[in-house]
Each structure stands twice: as C-alpha cells, then as structure tokens.
C-alpha cells in the first residue's frame, strides 16, 4: 500500500515541529514531576495546612483548625528560642570555618604531585561515611575518661575536658566534628573550580612579579568566586538542618545546649505526635532558611 500524505484529510491543525518538541519534553518530565509533586510539593503544602491544626498523629480523625495557636505557642516556647539560637550559632560558625578549611584542603590537593590523589581520597573519605557512624565514633573520641582526644590532651599536660557533657563545650565539639566530616565535600567542589582557572593567568601574574599570596588573592579567589558563592549557600542550608549529630551524640543536651530547630521538629512531630505544632516549626524554619539564602545571595552579588 502506498502512503500519500496529501490523501489524509485532517480536521486538526498539524503540530508544528516546535510544539511537538515542547509536548515531548513535558511528557518526558511528567513521571519525575508527578513524583516530585506527590512526595515533595504536596507534603510541603500539607505542612502549611497542618500548622494551623491541633493534630495528634495517632488520632488523625480528631484534627481540628485552631488558627494561629501553634504559632503563638511557638514564639512563647523557651525551647524554640534556644533551638533557634543554637541553630544560628552553629551556622554562623560552621559556614565560614568549613568553607575555609575546604578551600585550604582543595589548594593542598590541587598540586600536581602523586600524593595529591591520595590526599583527595583521604579528605573525602569522611564524607562517604554515614553521619550516624561518624557521630557514634566521635562520641567515643570525646569520652571524658577514655576518649582518644582526652588521652592526647593529657599527653600535652592539659586536664581532661568534658566535651559533650558540658553545656559550654557540647556545641563547639559538634561543630569541630561536623567540619571534619563535611569539609571534604566542599573541597571537591572547590577543586573543580580550581581546575578551571587558566594556567596563563598564573603565568602572567608571575611575570608581573606576584608572590604566592598575591596570586591567591588576585587570581585564584576572583576566578572561583562563582564556586565560592555556591559552596556558601549549600553549606548554609545544610548547616541549618543540623540534626543527626545532636540526635546521636547528645540528645539535644546538656541543658538544651545542642537542641536545634530540626531536632525540635522531630521531637514534637514523631515522639510527641504533635503534628500541628511540628508543622508550625517546619514553616517557620522554611521561612528562616529562605530568608537567609536570599540575603546571602544578594550579599554575594555585591
């Protein structure tokens, strides 16, 4: 049988190549979009709705709207203010320290020598280890009597430190181990940025008689500024989500000194089954993260 295109009478307007391409694109992304909507967008919207409800997780039928009650309770809750303060403290310290350490490590392993590869593996290995495992190990390291760190301090004649047992030291101890665990990831991103800096720029700087610091300050840093911005933003968002370390190592204590917003959200939502209150925390948390990201973005542009 012979096909003749002219012989097919069509009442519809034929699709142009462009519209066809457009619909094809939609069709391809549809499965992902459906999943994204069901498991991400929908829960997020539900969290907004639930935050205005008194909702006991074990008794979904009994949920009822209570207006702004959860939010009023939240801003009068001393634990919320403590958690907020702790989260901020962690973020403000971790973001610059971790980024600086990561950049330092990246510069270190960017050398064209054989050990550099080994160094990359070495610094990256904590990142691929589960945070829960790392947290448990560091709990042992921080032990007041038998921990390795105190043994080392003892060697230098320093008294045993309580670390996780002290409200003053617990958060700093967590910051230290968090930087150790996560810096390797940012190091990799920095490393990718460093690889893109054209060699000619360094050569030109050398001709101009620039020393190592001047080369770093005037060539390296400006050339990787876009990477730096990205690293700062993702590190900030990750820092806000601090949960596993206090959950495993200190249970938010001592004296709530390591309680964070996400820890509080988990505790109220899952342990106390107070879905409404916990959703209100999530919404406030979302707004804080959003605001911080926008501010950071604006600041980086300048």
């Amino acid at each position, binding site marked *: 049988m012979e096909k003749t295109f002219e012989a097919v009478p069509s009442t519809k307007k034929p699709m142009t190549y462009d519209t066809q391409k457009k619909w094809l694109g939609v069709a391809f992304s549809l499965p992902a979009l459906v999943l994204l909507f069901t*498991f*991400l967008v929908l*829960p*997020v919207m539900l*969290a907004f709705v639930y935050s205005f409800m*008194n909702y*006991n*997780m*074990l*008794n*979904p039928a009994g949920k009822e709207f209570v207006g702004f009650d959860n939010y009023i*309770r939240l801003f009068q809750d001393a634990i919320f203010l403590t958690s907020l303060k702790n989260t901020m403290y962690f973020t403000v310290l971790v973001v610059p320290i971790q980024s600086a350490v990561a950049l330092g490590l990246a510069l270190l392993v960017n050398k064209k020598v054989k050990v550099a590869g080994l160094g990359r593996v070495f610094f990256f290995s904590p990142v691929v280890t589960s945070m829960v495992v790392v947290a448990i190990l560091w709990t042992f390291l921080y*032990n*007041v*009597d*038998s921990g390795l760190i105190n043994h080392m301090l003892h060697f230098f004649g320093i008294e045993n430190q309580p670390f*996780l*047992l*002290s*409200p003053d030291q617990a958060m700093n101890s967590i910051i230290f181990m968090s930087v150790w665990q996560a810096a390797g990831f940012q190091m990799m991103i920095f490393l990718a940025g460093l690889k893109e800096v054209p060699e000619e720029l360094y050569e030109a700087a050398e001709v101009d008689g620039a020393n190592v610091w001047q080369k770093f300050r005037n060539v390296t840093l400006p050339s990787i500024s876009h990477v730096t911005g990205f690293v700062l*933003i993702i590190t900030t*968002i*990750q820092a*806000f*989500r601090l*949960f596993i370390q206090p959950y495993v190592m200190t*249970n*938010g*204590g*001592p*004296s*709530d000194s390591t309680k964070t917003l*996400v820890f509080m*959200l*988990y*505790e109220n*939502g*899952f*342990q*106390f*089954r*107070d879905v409404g*209150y*916990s*959703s209100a925390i*999530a919404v406030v*948390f*979302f707004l804080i*993260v*959003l605001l911080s*990201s*926008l501010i950071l*973005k604006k600041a980086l542009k300048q």
Partner: protein
Amino acid sequence: MKKLLVLSTAAVLSLGTLSACGNDDNASSGSNDGETKLTLWYPEGDMSPAYEEIIEAFNQENDGEIEAEIEFIPRGNKYAYEDKVSAAATSNTLPDLLAMDGPNVANYADAGIIQPIDGLVDNEDQFVESIIKQGTFKDQLYAVGPTESTVALFYNVKMLEEAGITPPKTLEEAWTWDDFYEAAKKLTNKEKGMYGVNWTLDYGEWIIYFTGPSVWSNGGSFIAEDGSKADGYVNGPETVEALEYLKKFTDEGLVNLQPTPTEFEDGNAAMMLMGSWEWAKLKDYPDTEWGITYYPKSPNGEQVSPSGDWAWGVSTGTEDKEAAAELLNFIHTKENVLKLAAVEEKPPARSDAFEELTEWDKEPLNVLKDQVLQTAHPRPSTTSYPVLSTKYGQAVQNIFLGGDVQEELDKVAKEVDTDIERKQ
C-alpha cells in the same frame, strides 16, 4: 529565575526533612482462600528467634486456617519502634497484633489504635498483678505480656567483701538511700578509676524506669492519679528530694557519666543498678562472683521496684479479632511464657510459670522474684506519656550533669501540662 531556583532549593532542603521520615507499606491482614493472615510487630532483639519458633508452631497447629507472620522492627536506644507505630497509625497500616512497651498502653488505647481484650484472654487470673495493671486503661484490659522486669542492685561479691560491706538478703532489710550512698562512697576509688556504682544514661525509656522507684518509695509521683496534671507531682517536693539524693552520686563522682558498656562486668565499678536481664549477661563473666540485692528504699517509705515489659495488644486494624485473640493466647500459654522468659532470664508474667522455675526461689534470683511479686510498681498511665518520659529523661540527664533539680522538673511539668491540654 535565579530567585526561583534559590527559593525552590531552600524549600526542598528545609521542608524535605519532614517528608524524609516516611513510613512503610506494611499492609494489615487480608484473607484469601479462606485462610486468615495475621501480622505481628515486635522490636528486633534477643527475643526474635524465640518468637519466630512460637509463630512457626502456631502456623503448624492452624495450618490452612490462620497464617501468622512476625516482623521485627529495629528499636535502637531511642524510640524508633514507637515512631514506626505512629506512622503506621496515620496510614492505617498497623499489624493485627502489636507489641508495645507497657507505658504506651494508655496512649495507644486512648488514640484507638488498640482495642479492649476483656474476656478474650485465657487464664487471666494466672498473670501477675503488675502485668494486668500495666495493660489496663480506664478499667478495660488492652494488653498482656509474657514476661515482667524489674531493676535491682547487682554487685561484685569479692569487692564488697573486701570493703567489709554486707548487702541485705531479705526484703525487710533492704538498704535505705543512706546505706546505699555510704557503700558506693566506700567503694569508689578515683585514683584506680574505680566507681562505686554504675548506671546507664541512655536517651530512651530507661531513665524514668530506673529512677521511678526512688520517687515512688519517697512518696512522690510523676503525674496526678487521673493523669490530668503534672504540675505539683513531677516537680513535687517528694520527687525533688528523690532526685536530689540520686544527684549526690553524680556530683561526688560515685557514678561514671560516660561509662564503657561493660564497666561493671570488667570490674571497674563495684555495683550496678540494672534491669533483671543483666543476670543473663553476667553469665558470660563466670570468673567473677556476682550478687543481687534489692533496689534501695527511701528512709521515709517502703521498698518499691519498677515493673513493666513489652506486651501484646490487638490493633483496631485487624479484620479477624477472634483469630488475633487465638494467637495472643497461644503466645501466652504456660509453655511459651517459659520459653520466652528463658531467653533473657526474665521473670515470667504468669505465676504458674514462675512456680516451675525453682532457681528463682534461691539466692540471688529470689531478690528479683520478691520484687516482681511484692513491690512492683507500674509506670504512670497517661496519654501524655511520650512527653513525660522524654522530657523527664532529658531533665534527669541535666540534673546529673549539674543542673538544678527543682528548675529542671518545673520545666517538665510545664511541657507535660501543655501536652495534656492539647489532647483535651
């Protein structure tokens, strides 16, 4: 566009934490070919093999009629199992038979995720009083369990002998707080790294369970009898006094705040305030002679011991209550109770089973038997139990690390009362 990207990244990363704690799709009972299918949940642990055998025996006996399947859920030292039950309750995916720790009975019964089993339990009169009390909510029976538990003072016989300390052998002579404190002080040797007593400080249910008897013995409590109020109870003068007493141990370094898991077994602590299951563990250390004595009592009160253990309830999601009850009774026959009790050498929760275990009449296990049968006290029955247990546990940790007793317990009272109000 860039703004949108930042916005969506922020949304994904922040609110994504909520949806990250999802749940499984463990469907509840369903029948085909006329065969009833039953599912059971139990926390994963040493008991798992024994339960597997019992379920297999049940399936053989009821071949073609009922088929049961048990699933073991990891618990950790926190509340992972309870989290899973909560998630299942919201999505109607509860198993037919549900194991729960004693104090959760009230919460689950109140929320309607387990149903009354009055009249369905065979030989109800054989169960020890504390297990029936634990499973009762508003005068209806909701759960029974095969085993009981208690906390006693385990000790290293040689170390106490060397220090010239003779622990009491009868309930009437049980140590008072002061006797216990003096003994611990005498046994502590800081230069040698030797602690007078070891007690675990984990972040789960343990804290309220092991400190409870001190509070009750002193006439204190955690919450009003009807569960309506915590203020004036959990922070009442008797409760505060009891914790002031325990705080002396940590303040003076008689207890190690970060002990190794086997500090007592390794001979680095002379005594250990621990659950009855410790005796089975001590059998791995046959070179040392171990003893058990009673939980110390307040000078103003009677000797009290904690009680409660994992119990079984029938979920409201079951489609065949009769079959579920049959399985429940099968788990609690005298033979199976003995089998389950033997795993961790727990005290059986049936008195007729207890009578068969003659070694429990001899030293030192008679101490545990005395406590289970005579001085057992269940933990409070309240729908706000999760908040009480968690907040009280955190408060006690803070107290042991140097916090002020009254201040910390006031905070607990406030949190619990907020939760009670919310649920009304």
